[in-house]
């Protein structure tokens, strides 16, 4: 297992459902917990993952997420069982939507 910590600048996101949970820690899947943090213009992420050595891939996936979505003011905790970037990207979008009130 590997623990990774990141911080990204991101535009503030309005919160409606705090905290919000998405996904399950199953094979090739992950769970994402979005809570409110204290920095309105930043998104902090802590990942615990079963797959070692993919720190740079995580950084790229999360950076792209924090750039393309307003996610500032959140603290995101992730438990991962080897999800691919495609699954991570999808779950992040779902979790953030949930955090904003669940509306699609």
């Amino acid at each position, binding site marked *: *297992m590997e623990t990774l910590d990141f911080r990204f600048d991101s535009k503030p996101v309005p919160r409606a459902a705090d*905290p919000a*949970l998405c996904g*399950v*820690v*199953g094979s090739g*899947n992950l*769970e994402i*917990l979005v*809570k409110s943090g204290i920095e309105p213009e930043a998104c902090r992420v802590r990942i*615990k*993952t*079963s797959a070692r050595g993919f720190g740079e891939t995580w950084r790229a996936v999360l950076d792209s997420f924090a750039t393309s979505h307003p996610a500032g003011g959140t603290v995101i*905790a992730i*438990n*991962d*069982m080897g999800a691919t970037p495609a699954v991570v990207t999808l779950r992040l979008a779902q979790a953030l939507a949930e955090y904003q009130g669940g509306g699609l």
Partner: protein
Amino acid sequence: MIASLAARHSWFEATARARLAGLLDPGSFSEILPPAESNPSPHLALLDLPGAFDDGVVVCYGQLGKRPIFAIAQEGQFMGGAVGEIHGAKIVGMLRRAAQEKPAAVLFLIDSGGVRLHEANAGLIAISEIMRAVLDARAAGVPVIALVGGSCGAFGGMGIVAKLCSAIVISEEGRLALSGPEVIETVAGVEEFDSKDRALVWRVTGGKHRYLMGDCAMLVEDDIAAFRSGATEFLAGWSEPVPSVAHLRAGQQTLENRLAAYASYRDGLQVWAALGVAEPESVPLLDRDALVALKEGLPT
């Protein structure tokens, strides 16, 4: 599009949280120890494995048909729904609280292969505490209803727990047994039991077989709404019996009779024939309603 298929929300496929969302009255779900307030298993962390925030089980208050109930839902996708220390403690706490607060029922959404082997003795102790807590809740007059229809079924210690509940509501996809098919094959060889023959596995452990054998009170479709209406209907006509030695003795006798009648059989097909089913080979393809009608027509 077949309308009945479009409307179906598979229990088998759903996560524990999705099952609860569809099972309870809308808006009544109130989680105890939600993910943001609980901790993943320290045992798994020691073994360098990622945990889940809720340790694979959701415990909550809720309502079913406006009656207050407690619910416990295992997440089969996380470590096969296996029972670890925190997972078990959450279940036991909920059952003990039920014995005190006396809700209309505890709905126990079982989806588990049994003990979480990574947690060894802590997991084993947790299972035995769950067994005791189920019986304590029932002794306090609170029915505990097992709902079995997830991908992991109810095996190992959780198979025993299921049988300690007041009743079991099961779907055809659900399975109930002690040792899992792979365990039997590993221990006794493929000649004894071919765990890859999935049709055989279901003929021996699956929901239809358990229902025909009288191990389960209700057989429902693999549909969250069907589990909801099944549980509601069952509770409406149920009052928890006062425990008695005579009742236990009768149960023991039933099991002994079963052993004497079927111990030499290798397949559910043989058992069904012995039960009086005219065309046993047709059973796996019958739909739920046809099977229920078949059972009601069997000699008793």
